[in-house]
């Protein structure tokens, strides 16, 4: 068989090479051997070939050239996706894993396929769901779960099959630190061979003892994890830098005082106004604003928040704290109760429909706002609906693309760009509308550290005010003059960044 016979170790590959049908070379001469019970981190920039290598090792992609060894024997080449027995694979998007109509059915799916009896399946599934803290959600349809719960449910579905080798693609992506903690605790209990792809190096350092660094489809380093962390030049070389994340286990008490830029009422229930008179009213201001979901669940409560022209504000909070809902309210997409001021004038619900001209938004998943066939069309979409002249549209497209470093990308197809480029394109499409306020929802999610660095430079040069929704404390501290902490739908801190990060008490863990 091509000169390859057998290989020690749990899983290995030799001179692996893979090209996508469009000719793009994804993996080149990859040779790696992973022993039983070893814990390996696959790291590298976006597009370096990590996910492709994982799919090749698992048998989901056909082995075009080279050889893969599993349990010591060479894996026969097949043209159809044939996952290798005993492997558990977790993709990045948990919705891909939860294809049954209840969480319980999803967890027992693999167990039934292993030929276990119904009673065995039930016992194992409930034990696994209890382990991930979802026993009470067993009978719920997956679409009602939060993102973090879906991630844990998908992990439970994979772990229930007791895989001897676990391959995880960004298990911590899009999660707040407390959810990451939960995932890390679950994985710490796992005793089999573990291969993890992620950009969060501190998270990986807790789980893995070995790091394999990929760049441009090649394995550049294969070293001890601690050694990789000790050598910043390695991190820098491959765009691997730490992100700083925040978690709260005991939120501080809510401040009884709140500030309005233009107070128009008094309080008699113990609340007090801070003096915050300004000459120029803020771009937008919410006063005693609350929002409930249609099913009655409270999402936001008594929000007092204003953003001045040019101000950079970080909005921080755990998953489910209400950050994205607050953004939707600021954009006028959700109405809620309370007062909404725009340049000092109260904006009635019917008038908030026009806020899109002044408030821009960059979504967490940029695929949600990229739908045009070319980058030029994408960036011109907003200005065109603003009914601007063609010359002005062309000027704005050129300026916006230049601002995010995508000049020359005008005719490229957005779908074919890398993750970082798509994020920058989404920012350009918002900037082209020259908003007074830009809302950025988790702009660093899914970006490798090199992509984050480029993003940082772009955001530093934006003149418009922006509201940065993030878990990334490094970005918040670096970019924003003010930080707002949201917890369970309430603002529990609203300070200058300097005060915010100085006053932060020990219940906040900076990792």
């Amino acid at each position, binding site marked *: 068989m091509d000169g390859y016979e057998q290989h020690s170790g749990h899983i290995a590959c030799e001179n692996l090479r893979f090209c996508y049908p469009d000719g793009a070379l994804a993996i080149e001469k990859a040779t790696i051997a992973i022993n039983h019970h070893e814990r390996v981190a696959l790291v590298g920039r976006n597009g370096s070939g990590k996910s492709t290598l994982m*799919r090749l090792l*698992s048998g*989901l992609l056909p082995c075009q050239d080279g050889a893969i060894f599993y349990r010591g024997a060479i894996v026969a080449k097949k043209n159809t*996706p*044939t*996952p290798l027995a005993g*492997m*558990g*694979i977790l*993709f990045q*998007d948990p*919705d*891909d894993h*939860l*294809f*049954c*109509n209840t969480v319980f*059915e999803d967890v*027992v*799916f*693999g167990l*039934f*396929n*292993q030929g276990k009896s*119904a009673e065995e*399946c*039930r016992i194992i599934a409930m034990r696994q769901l209890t382990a991930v803290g979802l026993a009470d959600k067993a*009978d719920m*349809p997956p*679409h009602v779960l939060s993102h973090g719960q879906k991630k844990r449910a998908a992990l439970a*579905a*994979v772990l229930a*099959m007791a895989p001897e080798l676990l391959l995880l693609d960004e298990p911590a992506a899009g999660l707040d630190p407390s959810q990451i903690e939960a995932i890390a605790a679950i994985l710490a209990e796992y005793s089999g061979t573990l291969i993890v792809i992620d950009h969060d190096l501190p998270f990986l350092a807790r789980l893995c003892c070995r790091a394999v660094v990929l760049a441009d489809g090649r394995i550049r380093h294969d070293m001890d994890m601690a050694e990789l962390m000790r050598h910043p030049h390695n991190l820098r070389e491959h765009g691997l830098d730490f992100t700083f994340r925040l978690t709260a286990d005991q939120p501080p008490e809510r401040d009884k005082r709140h500030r309005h830029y233009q107070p128009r009422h008094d309080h008699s229930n113990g609340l007090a106004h801070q003096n915050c008179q300004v000459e120029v009213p803020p771009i937008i201001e919410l006063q005693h604003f609350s929002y409930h979901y*249609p099913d009655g669940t409270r999402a936001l409560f008594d929000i007092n928040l204003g953003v001045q022209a040019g101000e950079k504000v970080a909005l921080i909070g755990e998953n489910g704290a209400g950050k994205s809902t607050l953004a939707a309210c600021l*954009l006028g*997409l*959700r*109405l*809620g109760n309370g007062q909404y001021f725009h340049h000092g004038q109260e904006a009635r619900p019917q008038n908030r429909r026009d806020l*899109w*001209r002044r408030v*821009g*938004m960059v*979504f967490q998943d940029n*695929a*949600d*706002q*990229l*739908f*045009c*066939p070319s980058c030029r069309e994408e960036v011109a*979409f*907003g200005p*065109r*609906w*603003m009914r601007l002249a063609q010359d002005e549209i062309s000027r704005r497209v050129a300026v916006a693309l230049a601002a995010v470093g995508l000049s020359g990308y005008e005719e490229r197809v957005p*779908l074919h760009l890398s993750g970082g480029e798509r994020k920058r394109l989404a920012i350009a*499409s*918002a900037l082209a*509308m020259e908003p007074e306020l830009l809302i950025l929802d988790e702009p660093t999610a899914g970006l490798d550290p090199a992509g984050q660095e480029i993003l940082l430079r772009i955001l530093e040069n934006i003149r418009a005010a922006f509201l940065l929704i993030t878990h990334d404390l490094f970005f918040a501290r670096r970019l924003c003059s003010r930080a707002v902490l949201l917890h369970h739908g309430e603002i529990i801190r609203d300070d200058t960044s300097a005060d915010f990060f100085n006053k932060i008490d020990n219940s906040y863990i900076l990792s």
Partner: protein
Amino acid sequence: MNAALSWLESLLVLAGLLSPLMLPMLYFLLYRPKRRDGLASPIDSLDARAARPSFFQRWHCGLKVACLLATCFLFISPRGLAVCLADVAIALLATALSRPSWRRVLARLAAMSGFLTMLLLMLPFSGAVQAGEPTYSLAFLPDSLPLRLSGLGAATLIILKATAVALLMEPMLSTATLADTLHGFRQLGVPASLTQMLLLCHRYIFVFQHEAARMWRGMRLRGFVAGANAASLFAIGNFLGMLFVRSFERTQRVYEAMLCRGFTGEMPRAAAPPMTARDALKALFWLALAVSPLVTEMYFADFMRFLGE
């Protein structure tokens, strides 16, 4: 035998012909105002109330599906107005016994109302008038377009049959988990591939809806307003194309995730609980109830004529 109706009578007849449109109006009045923020209301899961105990929920799923399917065929076979009314009453009783989401029941009926209204407007005025057939001339229509009672009767029968069958969908589909219900259909010979596709569709329609809503929001935030113009159609074309591409990519990933968990072409499930004597008795009772209007029509014609008069 043609009778001319006055303007008032004609307007009343027209109101009667348009009466199915009251269903969407009623739905709007009862449920629409709850959407306060202008966002699309979430789709209710078909089996969201499957755990609520009811006459149908405690019935063996395969037998229930078989009996209710047979009932549907029974309900579309009779011809008399009184029998159809009795069928609707039985279907309404079945719906009430299933402890349904009345919102969804009304939505389902409202969705049919356009088609039913078209039938009511077309059938009474189409077809050749038979000799001796009673007809009526409406004040706002020419005499050459009279309203035929036989056409009106035919349209009414179709509406009643359609309503009865639509009502039966609630006890059939919402009183067990969708997986159990589809397993019941499989026991009746429906191909496994079809039931698997329906299961996956039901799961991913929510993901699809969320993706579509987020993309639509992204377009709205950049000024898009849907309208009947080229720019709008172009944008909607891009939107639909991107939705298709994303769905296609997801299909691939879901299939791979299924393969990784041992999928070999068959969705595994726990064995259904066995049929009991109680289930069989329920089936007998239900079929007797469902067939009773038809039997009454066939063997008690005089009684039915009396009812008809």
